């Protein structure tokens, strides 16, 4: 049911409810927590990329004064993993280490220096094993695979699907083109390093605080690994100093801090170093990809075949989902009548990849948007026209059975093209300058939960006291995206109250009802809907009670800004609430959200990609390239985003600008690179993130398509705006210099290599040309929806 805001609270650009605390440094991050008798935990990590653990001797560490406990893998033997299909991690290594940085042993000590010294005294004997550090190596059969028994290759998962008759689509095409792209891995680099603190409380229950985006999953996994019932564990997620997906997995330090607290009976805190954060990773997968697409002469897609190869790192993590994401969302922006997707994820002896802003979709989006640009050039079309000929329509179904509802893609495209003057600038700017265009789409929450269940994904409870204070309870974890402000705003809008006057209790498994976590851009849509339902129920209780009390028709009672009006009378909110409490008793209400069931297909793999709504973005980048140094200066970014409806315009714009900044780093400089199994530079000096000096002006255009199912029509904004930026920059570099750099980051040396290729009569390209020697199984045919038959 569509509910429109009437109080001017939704849509305003008010401050975050926690903004003052953030700005003044009073918000309590994990590392701000301390207890008088607290111990410091430290994890000893592997310096081998791949090795068998022959023996661990902890006796010298245990003998060090100030050491209270030493743990090894034997103390935490239960395997875990965030996805039910990937239970392949241990809190501390058992038998084998698979990457530099794998946790091997842990200590709790009086202070951090003793903890560090104790780690030095743990004697581990390793038997080094051959390391696998690339997809090319991972496809080979080896005696000692990273997981499982050999000899076999290091493939983790494979998918091979076909929707409709792709070969027939290629047959019918006037033009078919193939391209290979590589998207280098990169990491989240949230400013706050991960940390956890655990203690056993006065009732004997374990309380675990963590800088996590997923308190519920941490709760479940902690119960499993610590072998405690869930009701004996309380998890609190602290506000995080950035997450971007980095803190959506469960990590060794969280489980180890908990176990150390249980063993010692004292609070234990572990805060990771930046180097350890780089080893936790779960960031962007390096993806090698190949696109083959057929077009009619006027640019309509007849069929597409996409193959992706993911370098997954040492563990499964979210990888089984990441793999599907590299193929599933291509159909959400363009109508593809026949589609074949084959992908494989491989284990390598590097930190595990996982979900980073855009989870698995920025890589194929980069390839697809450049591929389309190249096809447009082949066909003598401009980049806008070829996209317009293929745009997905609102309220339609894709060939892979994704349900599209509200879709402001065309408006995004039109407005960004108009605002940037793209048509006048494209192919018309002086040498070295260029413009590029790309679009993207992203989910407003994954349609399916991570573990199979039929319960809601989000639940919210609201309660009002006699003074009129409304308290909102939700497990949604604010990872900086503003979910706490969103909850206060949605409930505030429904009740006519200023968001800053509400109290929001979040992210605590003892106190708050379920929210699955801050990932897949799900919180505004799902927790927002649950909050709206609860608030509407509460409003109804108040309105009914006031109507009874004043003996008027319920239709004559209305909620205004901080007041309830009825038949010419005006009550303050608190007065109205007291009438309602007298009528009903404790004033509280709950709301729940579960995505509709009819948004997905019925095939293996259909669970990844469906969402109750998709956001849409279009981007134009204008660049200035130095042909002698290969440096790219992004002069300006125009970004139009269909957010459905902006709950808080300031936060929406902030998410767009933050996405552009992150995208700029991915496009131009950030890379999680390695020397063998060794990270190329696990520090914020060596890992290059753009500074404020590299950040161009961003013109943000908000498109409000008002989704019929979103809270007040809202959709996501946290991830989608990142997607089109990288390909827009790459397409702009092509417009500027006539070269194609078909991989990120577009480092200056790669631009120079492409320019040299051009000078020598080549096509002026830098990028991958070969695919790994890997045979996919033949695709599983899936019957497309009726409109494609």
């Amino acid at each position, binding site marked *: 049911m569509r509910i429109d805001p009437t109080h001017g609270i939704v849509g305003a650009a008010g401050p975050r409810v926690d903004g003052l605390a953030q700005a003044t440094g009073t918000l309590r991050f994990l590392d701000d927590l301390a207890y008088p008798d607290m111990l410091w935990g430290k994890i000893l990590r592997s*310096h081998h990329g791949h090795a068998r653990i022959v023996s661990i001797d902890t006796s010298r560490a245990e003998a060090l004064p100030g050491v209270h406990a030493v743990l090894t893998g034997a103390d935490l033997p239960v395997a875990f993993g965030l996805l039910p299909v990937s239970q392949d991690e241990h809190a501390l290594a058992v038998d084998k280490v698979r990457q*530099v940085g794998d946790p091997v042993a842990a200590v709790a000590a009086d202070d951090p220096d003793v903890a560090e010294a104790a780690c030095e005294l743990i004697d581990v004997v390793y038997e080094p094993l051959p390391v696998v550090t690339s997809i090319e190596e991972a496809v080979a059969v080896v005696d000692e695979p990273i997981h499982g028994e050999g000899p076999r290759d290091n493939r983790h998962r494979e998918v091979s699907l076909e929707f409709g008759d792709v070969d027939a689509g290629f047959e019918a095409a006037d033009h078919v083109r193939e391209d290979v792209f590589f998207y280098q891995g990169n990491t989240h680099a949230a400013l706050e390093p991960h940390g956890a603190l655990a203690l056993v409380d006065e009732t004997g229950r374990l309380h675990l605080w963590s800088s996590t985006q997923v308190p519920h999953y941490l709760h479940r996994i902690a119960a499993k690994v610590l072998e405690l019932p869930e009701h004996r564990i309380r998890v609190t997620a602290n506000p995080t100093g950035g997450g971007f997906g980095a803190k959506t997995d469960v990590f060794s330090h969280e489980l180890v801090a908990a176990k150390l607290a249980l063993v010692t009976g004292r609070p234990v805190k572990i805060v990771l170093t930046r*180097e350890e954060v780089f080893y936790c990773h779960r960031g962007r997968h390096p993806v090698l990809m190949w696109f083959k697409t057929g077009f009619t002469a006027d640019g309509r897609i007849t069929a597409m075949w996409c193959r992706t190869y993911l370098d997954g790192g040492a563990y499964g993590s979210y990888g089984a989902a990441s793999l599907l994401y590299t193929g599933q969302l291509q159909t959400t922006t363009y109508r593809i009548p026949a589609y074949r997707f084959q992908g494989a994820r491989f284990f390598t002896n590097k930190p595990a990849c996982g979900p980073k802003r855009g989870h698995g979709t920025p890589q194929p989006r980069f390839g697809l948007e450049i591929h389309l640009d190249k096809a447009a050039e082949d066909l003598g079309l401009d980049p806008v026209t070829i996209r317009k000929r293929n745009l997905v329509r609102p309220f339609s179904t894709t060939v892979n059975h994704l349900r599209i509802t509200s879709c402001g893609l065309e408006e995004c495209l039109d407005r960004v093209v108009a605002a940037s003057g793209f048509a006048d600038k494209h192919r018309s700017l002086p040498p070295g300058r260029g413009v590029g265009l790309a679009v993207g789409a992203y989910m407003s929450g994954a349609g399916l939960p991570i573990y199979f269940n039929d319960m809601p994904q989000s639940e919210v409870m609201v309660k009002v006291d006699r003074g009129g204070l409304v308290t909102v309870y939700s497990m949604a974890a604010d990872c900086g995206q503003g979910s706490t402000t969103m909850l206060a705003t949605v409930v505030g809008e429904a009740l006519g109250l200023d968001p800053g006057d509400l109290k929001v209790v979040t992210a605590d498994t003892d106190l708050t009802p379920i929210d699955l976590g801050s990932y897949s851009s799900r919180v505004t849509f799902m927790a927002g809907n649950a909050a709206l339902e609860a608030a509407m129920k509460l409003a109804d209780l108040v309105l009914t009670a006031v109507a009874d009390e004043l003996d008027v028709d319920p239709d004559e009672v209305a909620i205004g800004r901080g007041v309830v009006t009825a038949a010419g009378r005006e009550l303050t909110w608190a007065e109205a609430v007291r009438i309602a409490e007298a009528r009903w008793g404790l004033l509280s209400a709950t709301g729940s959200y579960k995505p509709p069931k009819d948004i997905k297909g019925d095939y293996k793999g259909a669970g990844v990609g469906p969402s109750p709504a998709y956001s849409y973005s279009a981007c134009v980048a204008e660049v200035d390239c130095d042909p002698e140094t290969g440096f790219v200066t992004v002069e300006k970014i125009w970004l139009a985003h269909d957010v459905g409806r902006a709950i808080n315009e300031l936060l929406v714009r902030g998410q767009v600008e933050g996405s552009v900044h992150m995208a700029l780093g991915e496009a131009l400089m950030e890379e999680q690179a390695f020397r063998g199994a060794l990270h190329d530079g696990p520090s914020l000096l060596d890992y290059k993130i753009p500074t404020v000096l590299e950040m161009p002006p961003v013109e943000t255009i908000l498109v409000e398509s008002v989704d019929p199912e979103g809270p007040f029509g809202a959709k996501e904004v946290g991830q989608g705006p990142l997607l089109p930026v990288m390909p827009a920059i790459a397409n702009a570099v092509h417009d500027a210099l006539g070269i194609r750099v078909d991989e990120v980051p577009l480092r200056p*040396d790669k631009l120079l290599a492409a320019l040299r290729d051009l000078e020598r009569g080549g096509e002026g390209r830098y990028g991958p040309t070969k695919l790994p020697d890997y045979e996919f199984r033949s695709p599983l045919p899936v019957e497309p929806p009726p409109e494609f038959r």
Partner: protein
Amino acid sequence: MLRLPVLRHAAPTTLDEAIELLAAEGTMLAAGGTDLVPNLKRRQYPEAKTIVSLRRIPELRGIDLLDDGSLRIGALTTLAELVADDRAAPALREAARAVASPQLRSRGTVGGNLCVDTRCHWLNVPETWRRAAEPCLKAGGDTCWVAPAKRFCWAVSSTDLAPMAIALDATVELAGPEGRRRIPLEELYRNDGMAHLTKAPDEILVALVVPPLGDRRAGYRKLRRRGSIDFPILGVAARLGFDGEVCTDARLVVGAIVSAPLRLPQVEALLEGRPLDAATIRAAAEAAGKAVRPMSNTDLTSRYRKRMVPVFVRRLLDELVGASGATATS
């Protein structure tokens, strides 16, 4: 956060006291500490036992204009103070402004930047990382991983200030147990990543003295990935004097190539005694490119950095020639 090793901290108030302290084993000097502290946290100086801070020695502070027009810059002058001092040559201020980030320039010092330790991506990494590789030469091992064939450390000189100050014919005052001495700044350095400074361990750099520029032109260009924070991966400093259109004296110094700032006299010779037309500048730039061989020990590839040398030299010379109005360049 990485932890500092356990260290003694001494804060003498006079130079003599500081020099005396330095006689002991395992002492290290600290000025602003912006480079020393992270290096200590990465356990790059296992021999360090005592940090001798120079911050309480008043004599090391302040910028003075001397009678001969030279500027004497106390070693503990912060980079931000130098940037803000309009008595200093604009090129020197520009080089100081190219160091690190605004926050670090408020703390980092002129003496600290001149003495800043050489860097390498096999060394300036956490100790736990270094353990995964055999320790390199500078970390106490037997092999330089940048060029394993030779037992030599290629860690790269990473000062922005030194190339520019050398091009400006600067000198430095050193104080040690034997008293004071003054040497050309160029002679403070040696091309050895393990021991890149010629001063004795118990000598303290007291001041940088920069002669007046007169009507000569000078400039500095720095290659780095980002507009702030990053160390140079190439620095080019030049000073040119003219008589009419003819270049009468030239200084060209490149930084961040080897373990010391590298003056290129063979390139200077190509510039001196002739008008600096486009062809001359191009020839000099190409010669500079041929004269240097960066190693794979910092950001971006060595091949790329070598390719940038002629580009940066040519652009700097073009800019200086254009600014002098001596010769039109194409």
